[in-house]
């Protein structure tokens, strides 16, 4: 039933494959988290802007992506991503065949999902800044850019870290779903190994442990960062 001896490193076991798969999971998580925050900054700005159209657009984006299962979004990008890119390329006069690799598809899909959560975190942390601070900054004669750079950004960063930490945990766990695209991360490696060794239980327990280690240590890391940046603020 258990074949934990198959987890050794080298040609006899799956240890090194699992190590590489873990790094792949981390790489996908970090890339999609980065993409997510990048999109989220614009989406949060659109949500807070006075432009009605941008506001509605960004609200539709977050509502739809958060209301639809992650797996469905991954399928949409997996089956439709290449066609979408090719039709965009066609508009620019390129008629060749473009195929997205699994890594890009995964990062885009998970990034789009994680962006919706980051948007709410960033929006909330912008709103948590007291309005009086902007008024004070204006009355002191700070320019718009200076207010943004010296008043808004430092405080938003500090307020957003706990929320971003939560989004990171969700993103990390969402990467398990991208195994359907064929990218060899922990879940895909688990399926491959258990099909070869006919022992799904062993490898699934291994996968669960790996995820547990990843979430626990990244949680500790975010706690550390949070304590560090909120030094002096209670």
């Amino acid at each position: 039933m258990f074949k934990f001896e198959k987890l050794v490193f080298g040609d006899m076991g799956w240890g090194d494959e699992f190590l590489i798969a873990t790094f792949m999971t981390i790489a996908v998580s970090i890339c999609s988290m980065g993409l997510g925050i990048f999109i989220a900054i614009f989406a949060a700005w659109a949500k807070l802007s006075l432009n009605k159209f941008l506001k509605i657009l960004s609200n539709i984006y977050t509502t739809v992506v958060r209301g639809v299962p992650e797996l469905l979004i991954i399928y949409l990008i997996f089956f439709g991503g290449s066609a979408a890119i090719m039709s965009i390329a066609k508009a620019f006069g390129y008629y060749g065949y473009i195929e997205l690799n699994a890594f890009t598809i995964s990062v885009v899909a998970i990034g789009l999902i994680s962006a919706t959560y980051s948007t709410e975190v960033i929006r909330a942390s912008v709103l948590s800044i007291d309005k009086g601070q902007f008024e004070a900054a204006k009355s002191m004669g700070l320019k718009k850019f200076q207010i943004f750079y010296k008043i808004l950004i430092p405080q938003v960063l500090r307020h957003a870290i706990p929320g971003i930490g939560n989004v990171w945990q969700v993103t990390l766990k969402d990467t398990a779903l991208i195994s359907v695209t064929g990218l060899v991360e922990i879940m895909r490696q688990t399926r491959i190994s258990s099909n070869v060794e006919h022992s799904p239980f062993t490898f699934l327990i291994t996968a669960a442990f790996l995820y547990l280690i990843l979430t626990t240590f990244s949680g500790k890391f975010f706690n550390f960062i949070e304590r560090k940046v909120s030094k002096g603020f209670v």
Partner: protein
Amino acid sequence: MQDSLIIVNFFQIFNALDETILLLIVSLPIGFIFSIIFAFGRLSKNKFVSKTISIYIFCIRGTPLLVQIYLIYFGLGNIKAVRESIFWILLKEPFWCGVLALVINTVAYGAEIFRGGIQSVKKGQIESGMALGFGKISLYRRLILPIALRQVLPTYGNELILMVKATSLISLTTYMEMTGVARKIMATTFAPVEAFVAAGSLYLFLNFLVVQLIKFLEWKYNPHLRLKN
């Protein structure tokens, strides 16, 4: 032509809506009841019980739902003792594996939510309940639980939406609910957008219903917060 594909897909996926709703109808009430029980277990003075439950919550919240589903669907069948027990009648069905996985997952999150609600009941209220001569059980039944439940309604509503979304993962255990059908359509017709629109709008509709239900419950159980006309 494309329009008709949307309509055909929509009805194919619509037929699979029953399967999704069936999963929810079975797993939500079980999950709700066990969440409350586990929340009390987490708060219990018995160190062993509270420690065990907090380890359980830690393990479930730290691993993806997909791992849990696979562990139950592929992993349990791997153990001989399970295959020979009476539970195998249920566990060989992907539906019951899905229900089990969803319940195990939601209880971990739900227990934490309810624990927060129970702990948020003010001490003064409990003390005044005791002063009025409530027994331990009626203190919980008439005072702590009603306050705690209405306190956590918005948070638990979020968890319910996550559950609706989580049912899509059961499609990976060959149980053909909406996402499974949508995947099949995408893979065979290469028209991913149409299938996505059909399935997505149905999921949005389900989530809309959940939000409305939670809103109604909030309105019903917070009569003191309603605007007086």
